[in-house]
């Protein structure tokens, strides 16, 4: 996968998450969420700097089924998937350093 952020929806989600050989950090976001916008550039930086993890995002407005499946009740919500399964869930916007620390075990 090219380094960048992949947009996932109901159709692509299971394929991409299931077939990834590295952990995937999925950002559940929406256009109307201010804190989601704040962390977007941080995730872009992490995507280009970290080789050990892929970054993807799911627009909850367009894919409410995915939000429901992972019981999202607050965004931004970041879920790290390992071997296709959710391994860690983080809620709320955080600065880059704190975020890297939280996902350190997957890098």
């Amino acid at each position, binding site marked *: 996968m090219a380094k960048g952020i992949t947009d996932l929806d109901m159709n692509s989600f299971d394929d991409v998450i299931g077939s990834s050989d590295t952990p995937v950090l999925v950002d559940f976001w929406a256009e109307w969420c*201010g*804190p989601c*916008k*704040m*962390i977007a550039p941080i995730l872009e930086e992490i995507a280009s700097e970290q080789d050990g993890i892929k970054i993807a995002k799911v627009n909850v407005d367009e894919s409410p089924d995915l939000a429901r499946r992972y019981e999202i*009740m*607050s965004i931004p919500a970041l879920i790290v998937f390992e071997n296709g399964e959710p391994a860690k869930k983080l809620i*709320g916007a955080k*600065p880059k350093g704190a975020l890297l620390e939280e996902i350190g075990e997957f890098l």
Partner: protein
Amino acid sequence: MNDIRDAIIIGSGPAGLTAAIYAARANMAPLVIEGEPSSTSDQPGGQLMLTTDVENFPGFPDGIMGPELMTNFRAQASRFGAEFITSKVTRVDFSERPFKIWVGEDAHRARTVIVSTGAQSLMLGLPNEDRLLGHGLSTCATCDGFFFRDQDIAVVGGGDSAVEEATFLTRFASKVYLIHRRDQLRASKIMRERALANPKLDILWNSQVVEIQGDEKLSGVVLEDTLTHDQRPLIVQGLFIAIGHHPNTALFQDQLELKANGYLVTEPNSSKTQIAGVFACGDVQDDYYRQAVTAAGSGCMAAIDAERWLEEHPG
């Protein structure tokens, strides 16, 4: 060591960014230390980052989304050369000139400082509150209202932001309870009338939340009547907290004069603090108006005060 700046602005809500626009246009090359991302209302862009339609900011006849308005403010400041650091200030020293401001180990120096750190949302301070944050408990109706479609939810508070959030949330929820500890709302007349006319909104007067319940996610609250002290459960799937704000003045406690309620003291009709060369604007020094447009106005005052101070104290 970094170069000595003409102006450093701490905070990036409407006040800080308006100060940045004016200071940048006055060739002061301001550095804005804008804060760091969070979902607590203490973040770059300030409280408006957690709001939806801003209907009372002049110049936008159809309203504008809070985050979009703040993105515009920032772009306008950038255009005139304001620089940004996306971090929190960890320490300040205003006891001698140039003033010093630390971001971690990194010290920045400036001839003038504009403090515009704003205010952040108060929490209820009840057990389970931290644990259930993001699991039914929210401080951002804009962000999370969507997830409560056709559910029963409650908003705690009685001011403009509580009433605005409750009204906004009726777009999604089947029922919104507004839990307020008094028998009338503090919110402005237009907001009150909107709330009272909304069939999906029920106001629970003289009520306060004394317990938040839920294991994996929020399942309800216990309310206490503020007059009779009777308690009763209220089953809701979501709880939104909008009980007011506290000024972000912890950094300045030993350096600047604070009012008893924690707000910074400024001279009447000015942005001057008691330290010459340090100015304050926006909600951090305003416990009365607290509007985006008054914050922006006071940010303009602070930049002009700083500019004049530099002219009077060259070198």
